[in-house]
């Protein structure tokens, strides 16, 4: 998978990190430019830099980080960010299915139908779940493992195949196939000397119950093997339980998992109420002063009016009828 060289080379796939909410995968091609609100970045400037370098834009307006892809970064860089939830699921699945270097794994629905199904909305959401699970498994099983990946949608299968090739994922064997109807065409060939069966199956399908009997055939028979069916809806889970139970699977458990962020770095410093009490007292004093000033002013006004009236009277009296 992906380059392990210290520095970025021509043709490498890198993750361009702008902010934690904004990162994009980029294939480095000399002569091309990346344009975004952080500035203009020439691919040729990036070639030869160590992975992890902070790169200023040509205009000097902003900067980005050039990161080495990981399945997690790759997933976060895809357009549909809700997928971040899915990362916790993937980690848990890989761990609980005991997927290790050299493991042989079957997955159906690599272009995960998760969000799709969740939204009850079957137009393809560009990039949704684009091989997040495949990338994560490929990383873990390494070059000695095998991932048999089945996608029933021809166009998506083609797209995935391209992507896996671009990412150097030689351990992935992708097939365009509707496993619910046609099965996996893998079986435990103990006597043939070469077994392409698997000890781990992961189904991310709208109707996993249809694929369960086929999965059983494709699983190794000489050991305990594990299956995981991923479903967003309760009804799917219950129906899958029935299918698994009928096929002789045991130790059925269901898990939910997620990663909960804890961002506590913006805790404000709070003012003591004693300070407020003193402020209110001061305010009270100021207000009383204002009131007293107003009273004094109004007294002055009244007095001056009185005086004025008095004076007017006095003048009137003094002057008497005007002689003019």
């Amino acid at each position: 998978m992906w380059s392990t060289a210290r520095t970025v080379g021509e043709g490498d796939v890198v993750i361009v990190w702008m902010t934690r909410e904004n990162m994009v995968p980029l294939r480095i091609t000399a002569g091309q430019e990346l344009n975004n609100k952080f500035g203009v970045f020439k691919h040729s400037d990036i070639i030869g830099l160590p992975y992890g370098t902070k790169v200023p834009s040509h205009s000097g307006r902003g900067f980005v980080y050039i990161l080495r892809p990981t399945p997690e970064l790759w997933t976060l860089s895809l357009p549909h960010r809700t997928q971040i939830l899915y990362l916790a699921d993937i980690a848990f699945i890989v761990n609980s299915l005991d997927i290790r270097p050299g493991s042989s794994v079957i997955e159906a629905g690599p272009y995960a139908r998760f969000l799709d199904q969740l939204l009850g909305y079957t137009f393809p959401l560009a990039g949704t779940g684009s091989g997040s699970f495949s990338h994560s498994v490929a990383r873990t099983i390494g070059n000695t493992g095998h991932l048999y990946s089945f996608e029933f949608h021809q166009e998506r299968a083609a797209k995935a195949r391209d992507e896996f090739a671009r990412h150097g994922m030689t351990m992935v064997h992708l097939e365009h196939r509707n496993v619910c109807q046609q099965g996996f065409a893998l079986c435990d060939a103990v006597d043939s000397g070469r077994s392409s069966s698997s000890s781990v199956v992961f189904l991310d399908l709208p109707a996993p119950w249809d694929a369960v009997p086929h999965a059983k055939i494709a699983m190794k028979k000489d050991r305990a093997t594990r299956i995981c069916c991923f479903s967003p809806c309760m009804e799917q889970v219950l129906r899958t339980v029935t299918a698994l139970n009928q096929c002789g699977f045991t130790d059925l458990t269901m898990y939910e998992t997620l990663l909960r962020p804890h961002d506590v770095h913006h805790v404000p410093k709070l003012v003591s109420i004693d300070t407020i009490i003193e402020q209110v007292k001061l305010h009270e004093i100021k207000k009383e002063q204002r009131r007293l000033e107003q009273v004094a002013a109004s007294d002055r006004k009244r007095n001056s009016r009185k005086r004025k009236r008095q004076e007017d009277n006095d003048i009137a009296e003094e002057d008497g009828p005007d002689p003019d």
Partner: protein
Amino acid sequence: MSAITTPEHLENVEPLQSPLGRHIIQPGAHLLIRLPSKEVRQVRLDKEPGEKTINFGKFGSLKQKYLVGQPFGLTYEIQQDKSLLVQPPQRLEELEDTGATNEQIVDRGEFVQPLTAAEIELLKKSGLHASEIIKRQIETHVNYELKTEYSKDKYRKRKEAKFAKQITVLQPSLFNVASYLFDKDPVKIQYLRVDTLGQIANLANLRPGGKFIVIDSIGGLLVATALERLGGEGTVLYITEADSPPQFPIIDLLNMPEEHTTILKYLDWASVDEEHDPIRAPIEPEGEYRSEGQKGRYEKRRQIIEAYERLREELFAGEWDGLLIASQYEPFSIVQCLTPYLAGSASITVYSQYLPILTELQSKMRPLPAYLNPSITEAWLRQYQVLPGRTHPLMNMTGSGGYILHATHVYDDKKALSALAGFRQRLKQRRRAKEGAGSSEGDQGHMQEDVDMEDTNSTS
């Protein structure tokens, strides 16, 4: 699992005949209106609706008078003449999952809109009913029949949200109001989520007849909760840094009967200091009353000051059943300041959106003998979409809805002086001390007031 049943046989109901209750829409009432887009808007009816209308933009315009006398909770279709047509309860459809898998649909990257925006606008202007427009869109949609039943349903619903002229009148109950505020302006209520609010109400042991002190920097949501749970019996004391009575639009929104809000009293923070002698405007003129009007105004001022004195005495007398805090100020200083007035076994309930604020409070309270078991909890909530065959948790529920510290006020020793006795004792001591020092400023307190009475009227 919770659900609502709405009146099905409206013809049997004579809403305005029955004693006026909060479940019936009154003139002047506040309403929460849910639009087809799921957005909730706050509106208020005129006290005299007459022919006045409310406009919901593309969702239509209605005459207020058609809402008066209706129970809350109904869904209406807005008609062309701005009248309302009650919609029957909408049942969930059991869809049959055909097993179609949109395997056949070829990606085009973009969503293929079957009708252009201009065409739709034309249809709308022609007065065509929303359901008819949606039907046409479906008919012209190339891939519609290839989709699964669930997808078709989702598609129809999205279109309805766009074109339907249906509104639902939600009762502005505490639950609905708190949910609405959390969605609309969470900063203002310090991200206090509706479930956390419910936990606070129960942990604080809010109940009719109780006496509670409420410190609220969240626009009155906590005060409103206390008022709602006391139902007009008991006292809610609000302490403020402002020098004027609290104005809480949230409380108005709840359409609470007036007798439920009159139990809300307020003091300012300076008054909470037992040593503080508030400055008061004089309650008698220096000379004679200049007029009957002036006399009346002095009388009113005297009543206010007396009520204020009684309330302050009531605070200092103690035996308050609980202290509730959702403040912008440091909570330990508040707790410490008000603890002397709490009854034995009174509950102390503090909200914060930040966990570290409460852990610090907890570490300060823990060593003190007056606080039993200060514990911090976080309410966790998850809502599910409930649709036949498609029941699943909603994914936007991972954030925190805030934290609660709860403790019980206890007396360390058996003698346990009542706060009142303690206050009287302290008062006596202070008086004695003052008398000894010469009591020149003895009874010359002044009370703050925004407008000076002598001045305002003496010039008229």
